């Protein structure tokens, strides 16, 4: 009798555990970004109209992306994106500290985050203040003078190998 009871208890517990796990997986997925959100994750930008030293901000996945065409007097970095014969800094315009948007000061050639005083240079490298790492580089691929954000191209993979070694 006792063993039959405990067998029932055991079965009930096991069934509940399996059901619980499936429920949790389902709930986790409900919180995931929707397919429509994921599908809208690509943005194409034409780089050719940019002037030397000009900063353009585009929106990608609701985040600002800084595209800076480097002029010859700016520091070159192995994280630069080369398209055609020009070098660009392409970074996600959110401070790596807590996610504020740094402003570009063209006179000093730096990005300044007003929130807690973080500073980044023209290549997006963190120079001072609380930000712990350089501005992030979004996944991209290059198609002539067009930049496709959200697609992982070989240029991106190339640059990611340099990150950290900079």
């Amino acid at each position, binding site marked *: 009798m006792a063993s039959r009871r405990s067998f029932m208890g055991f079965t009930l517990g096991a069934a509940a555990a399996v059901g619980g796990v499936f429920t949790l997986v389902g709930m986790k997925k409900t*919180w995931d970004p*929707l397919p429509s959100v994921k599908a809208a994750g690509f943005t194409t930008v034409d780089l050719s109209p940019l002037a030397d030293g000009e900063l353009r901000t585009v*929106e990608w996945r*609701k985040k600002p992306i800084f595209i800076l065409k480097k002029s010859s007097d700016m520091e070159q970095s192995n994280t630069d994106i080369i398209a055609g014969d020009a070098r660009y800094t392409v970074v996600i315009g959110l401070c790596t500290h*807590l*996610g*504020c948007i740094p402003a570009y000061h063209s006179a000093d050639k730096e990005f300044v985050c007003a929130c807690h005083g973080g500073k980044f240079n023209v290549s997006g490298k963190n120079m001072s203040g*609380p930000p712990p790492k350089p501005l992030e580089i979004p996944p991209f691929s290059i198609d002539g003078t067009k930049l496709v954000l959200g697609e992982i191209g070989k240029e991106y993979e190339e640059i990611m190998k340099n990150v950290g070694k900079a």
Partner: protein
Amino acid sequence: MAHFEKSNGIVDWLDQRLAIKKFMQVMMTQYWIPKKINFLWAMGVILLTMFAILFITGLLLVMYYKPDVALAFDSVNKTIMQEVEYGWLWRHMHGVAASVVFLVMYIHLLTGIYYGSYKKGREIIWISGMVLFVLFSAEAFSGYMLPWGQMSYWAAMVITNLFGGIPFIGPELVEWIRGDYAVGDATLNRFFMLHVCLLPIVVIAFVAIHFYALRFPHVNNEIAEEIDFDLEAEKYLAGKKKEAKVISFWPDFLCKDIFYVCLFMIFYFYLVCFHYDFAMDPINFEPANALKTPPHIYPEWYFLWSYEILRGFSYEVGLACFGIAQVIFFVLPFLDRSNVVAPAHKRGAFFVWFWLLVIDMIVLTIYGKLPPVGINNTIATIASVTFLALLIVVLPVITLMERKAK
């Protein structure tokens, strides 16, 4: 089936089915309160009143509020503020109550520390109270997001980004919490769900636990005297009300509490009527803009002290210290190693420690609002280190010495 008599009235009818007489005794007429307590003990009932106001005004607001990034801002600032009759009043009452509830909570909390009400026997009251504090913080934060102004948006951005600091799973976790690559519609809707459904239910549950926990060790008193409640209650019931050290919650004690609630209401409605803007940041009257950060981001006043601890250090250390500051008060009963239950002014070193803590938290609050430049950063770091040192190092040492001295 149980046996029911023919009832002699509505009360009796209910009593046979719900035991309401017994219930009233336990909850009101034979719930014993020490006589020697001052106005600081009225904070609990004031909090309960504030919670009721928040709940009712919230119901009225939610009838017109629209949790949609395209509609939220206007539904609050146009529909509720200008079209709905008395909508402005409910909104200001809701906003001001959300802010002053923290003032009262801080007083409640510091009273508990001052009189040692978190100690032996009362740990669960203290811990459930701290859980309530955290729940209220989450409730306040999720509500702050709903009008979808600039500060709402960027506060959400910063707070959700904090989770990115968690090792390994950080960035994915942030995306998962937001339901989007950045704070967006999905984020707004899930915070709406938290604010109007899940968190209020949990808050109510913990209020019940907090009250229930109070019934066993009973409430502390001004001189931290250990009272034999059964004995004193006997005296009271025998009619020796003067001699007894306790009185009943209802009707004796509550009149005093209600008096303080009335005083508080004067202050509260003064704010609602004349200074409602103190709980409303002007930046939040600008609609959310994902591509422009306000120049200086700061939380509401009641989070400034812990925000300042976050800012006081470099990124990772700040995040860790911020995490510690959130939970450190939970373990207060275990950091205080002395078993003396006495008001702080009878405990020498502890008294000094208490006021240092209060001053330090005020300094953190003030500097949390100032922009993080120059000397401010130094002060932030010093005050943050002091805060952590006071709780983690100084308190255990002081109380250990107290224990030795006995």
